[in-house]
């Protein structure tokens, strides 16, 4: 099971990275700041706390997925650590999937830490466990799937190009992924194939946003779960493409 070993090494390595630690700390501070911001509102403090908290988690999670994921493969190539690893009895696909699995675990760990903090803030505000219901858990789960999608895209770019370009492309995809739905809905007249193409090409991340459901404490619509399935399929497709490219890549 060399892929599992690669996964565990990746988890340890990523957890020690300054970028990951700093971003996580920043995320924790951002979530904590939402508590102060919530004090500025007039009534309905929960609405501000939950919305800002969830968005802070999303921003940090996506940044970690994009930056750390972009460095996973191309960084190993730059540091010349890839060749000795691949000299061992492990396939390139096993290596790439192991790296992605490690990244995924760290992303979910980050999510757990930040979600725990948001939950504490919401509980402190409400004075009960009431806010931590189905809406909260489902919103967090959908966020986790978003991170996995962005991480898979970052790993794909990392297998194709340099770390810097991979980070830029991954962030661009993460931002565009929040807009594809709006573009497709608003684009009228000639050339409607363009938004349709973007819709299928880019990950539709906005479909996995559950801010509104959390703010109004309603379960995300059935479409959200379809979107979750779609997100996982998209991540798998991105990884399959990454494996395809990485298998053929000249590592010299």
């Amino acid at each position, binding site marked *: 099971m060399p892929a599992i070993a690669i996964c565990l090494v990746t988890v340890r390595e990523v957890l020690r990275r300054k970028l990951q630690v700093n971003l996580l700390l920043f995320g924790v501070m951002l979530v904590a700041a939402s508590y102060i911001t919530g004090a500025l509102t007039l009534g309905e403090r929960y609405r501000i706390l939950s*919305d800002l908290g969830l968005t802070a988690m999303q921003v940090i999670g996506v940044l970690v997925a994009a930056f750390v994921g972009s460095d996973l493969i191309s960084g190993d190539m730059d540091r010349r650590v890839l060749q000795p690893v691949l000299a061992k009895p492990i396939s390139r696909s096993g290596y790439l999937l192991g790296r992605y699995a490690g990244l995924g675990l760290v992303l979910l760990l980050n999510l757990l830490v930040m979600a725990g903090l948001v939950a504490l803030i919401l509980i402190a505000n409400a004075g009960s466990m009431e806010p931590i219901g189905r809406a909260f858990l489902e919103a967090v789960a959908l966020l986790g799937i978003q991170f996995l999608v962005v991480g898979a895209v970052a790993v794909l770019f990392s297998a194709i190009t340099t770390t810097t370009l991979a980070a830029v492309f991954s962030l661009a995809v993460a931002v565009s992924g929040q807009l594809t739905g709006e573009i497709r809905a608003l684009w009228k007249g000639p050339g409607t194939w363009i938004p349709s193409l973007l819709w299928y090409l880019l990950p539709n991340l*906005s479909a996995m*946003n559950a801010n509104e459901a959390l703010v109004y404490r309603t379960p995300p619509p059935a479409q959200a779960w379809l979107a979750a399935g779609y997100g996982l399929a998209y991540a798998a497709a991105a990884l399959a493409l990454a494996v395809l490219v990485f298998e053929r890549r000249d590592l010299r």
Partner: protein
Amino acid sequence: MPTYRIVQATTFAGMALVTGLLASRLDSGTLRPYDVGIVPRAATLRWLSLGHPTLAANLLWLKAVQYIGDPRANERGWDRLHPLVDVITDLDPRHGYAYYVAGTLLAPLGRVVESNLILEKGTRARPDLYILPYSRAFNAFYYDDDWATAGRFAEVSARTPGAPAHVRQNVLAYYVKGRRAEAAVAFLEQSLAEARDPETRRSVEAQLNQALLERDAARLDDAVVAWRGRYVIGPLDLGQLVGEGLIAKVPKDPQGGEFYVDHDGRVRSTANPYRFSKPEPAWTRVQPRGAQERGKAP
């Protein structure tokens, strides 16, 4: 200490001093009341929010709260409140509290039209909140002297699940004062058909009886006014109205009593002498702040 260290330290101290001096002269915004320079368009914010319209709405709501809460708000005026809340509710149409706060704040400031607009928008977007049409009904009778519109919105409010029972009484009063007692009768008849428990049925029946009484008594009131236009006093008996051709016949009191003309010239029933008072004109009530000086309190 080496000279270069002294130069570095002096440069730092000098620049820190200059920065501090300049900072003290910058306008920190505390000299003026809090204001919102530009209210962005909802469509622009929707794009900029990257799929998080509720977040954009909530951040704008925080600005609206600062705008509302500034102690010198009247000095500044209230021009931006309606546009702000309009954008907030475009981005997050379910933001019920924003409709309510803006609606109830704007009307006493003399901005009744804006208040009505935002409350009506809220009534459409949040049909589950009885308080929005209820507040709109209040605006209609209190500021606009429009009792029929008040009745219409109170009816919407009363039909909202979870609305308190007293809202039904408001519907009755508004419609009666707006000379639309027949609308109150129709509403209460439907309410009676929908009532599930005996207590509610009793309460609605009492209101329906009052509505029927008001409807018939209002017709007789008109005939009495016409009689007095001819004879100054009287009539001694309501049958005289029939003889004079002012009404076809004296209606039966639905509560089993007899109609009579009171000393104040209003028709009442022996079974239930209570009648809703005639509406007072809006000018007799406390005027909205800044009604004369648009949006600015004196």
